[in-house]
C-alpha cells in the first residue's frame, strides 16, 4: 500500500496536536476572553496592571455614553461587572448586545480602552429582531445604514 509512508508524519502531527492541547496548555492560551463570573472569581490572578479581555452582555440599565466613551455593566450568569470604557464606541453598541472589552481591573471596576462587538450567529429582519433583543433594534439599523 502506497499510503504507508504517510502513516508516520500523520501520527506525528496527531501526537503533537494532542500533546499541545493536554500538556502544553494550548487551550489556556486560546482563551480569547473571560466571562464576568470568571473575572470576579479569578480577581486575584489579575492585578491592576494585567490586561485581559472581558465579555458579556451590556446591562439594560445604567448605560451612559460620554464624550470619551461609555460606562455600563456587563452581565454574567451570576454577577455583573461595572465597566468604564474610554475609547472608541462601536456603532452597534447598545443595551442587550454582547461586547468584548479589553483592559484591567481598577478596584471593583473594569477600565477598558478597546471595545469590540461580539455579534451572535442570529440574523433576523428588524421587526423579528425587536422581539429577540430587548434594546431598540431600529436605531441600530438607522446608524448602520446611514452614510
Amino acid at each position, binding site marked *: 500500500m502506497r499510503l504507508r509512508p504517510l502513516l508516520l508524519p500523520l501520527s506525528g502531527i496527531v501526537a503533537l496536536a494532542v500533546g499541545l492541547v493536554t500538556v502544553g496548555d494550548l487551550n489556556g492560551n486560546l482563551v480569547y476572553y473571560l466571562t464576568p463570573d470568571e473575572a470576579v472569581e479569578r480577581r486575584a490572578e489579575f492585578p491592576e496592571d494585567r490586561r485581559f479581555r472581558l465579555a458579556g452582555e451590556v446591562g439594560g440599565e445604567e448605560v451612559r455614553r460620554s464624550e470619551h466613551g461609555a460606562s455600563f455593566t456587563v452581565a454574567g450568569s451570576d454577577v455583573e461587572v461595572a465597566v468604564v470604557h474610554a475609547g472608541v464606541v462601536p456603532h452597534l453598541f447598545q443595551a442587550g448586545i454582547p461586547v468584548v472589552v479589553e483592559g484591567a481591573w481598577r478596584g471593583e471596576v473594569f477600565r477598558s480602552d478597546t471595545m469590540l462587538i461580539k455579534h451572535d450567529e442570529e440574523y433576523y*429582519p428588524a421587526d423579528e429582531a425587536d422581539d*429577540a433583543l430587548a434594546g431598540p433594534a431600529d436605531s441600530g439599523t438607522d446608524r448602520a445604514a446611514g452614510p
Partner: protein
Amino acid sequence: MTRYRSTDLVALALLGAGFVAILLAPTDGLQGVLQRLMYAHVPAAWLAYLAFALTLIASIGWLRTRHDRWDHLAVGAVEVGVFFTGLALVLGSVWGKPVWGVWWTWDARLVTTALLFLVYSGYLALRRGIDDPRVRADRAAVLGIVAFVQVPIVHFSVVWWRTLHQPPTVLRPGDPTMDHTMLAVLLLNVVAYSAVFVTLLRRRMDLARGERALEQGRLAPDAPVAGDAVVAPLPEGGERG
C-alpha cells in the same frame, strides 16, 4: 483563445440572480446593510472547504492510481481554494471593521483561516520548486492530504474555543438561527458561487493539462513534439541516442 462553455453562462446567470437577491433580501435588524456582505462571505468560506476536500480526494486518487487527471484536479482545486479563502478573509475583514470595531483580531477562527491560506499557498510554492512531474505530484499529494486536517479545525474553531467570530448559523445541529428568506438568499448565493467555482476549476484543469503536455515535450526531447516533420533541437553538447 477562450471558448465559453454553457456552464460558464449558467454560472454567470446564477451569480447575477444571486446579486439581485442580495439587494432584495430583508435588512438585518441589528447590523443593517452590513449583514449583506455575509451572502458572499459564507459561500467563499464554504468553497474553500469544498476545494480542499477535493484536493484531499484527488491527492489520494493520485497516490493510488498515478493518473495525471488526479494531479490536475488537486492543483486546480488548491489554486481556486486559495482564492476563495482569501476572499473570505478580505470580506470578513471589511465586515469586521464596522460591526466588531476591528479589521483583525487574534481569535481562533481568524488565525486558523489565515493559516489555511498560508499552508495552501505553500502547497503551490512547493509545486513550483520540483521539476520532476512525478516527484512533484507525489510530494504535493502528501501535503494535500495532511493539510486537510485544518479544515475541520477551522470550522469547529468557533465551537471548541472562545472566539470573537460568531458560531455557525447554518452548518450546525438544529434549525438555522436565521430568517428563512435570508436563508434562501444565502443558499441561492452558495449555489451561484459554487457554479463559478466549477467553471474556474475546469479552466484551471485545462491549464494543468496544457502545462503537462508542454512539460512532456520539454522533458522528452526525443518524442516528436510537433509531428515527425519537426525535429527538436539537440541539447547543448548532447547526442541523440
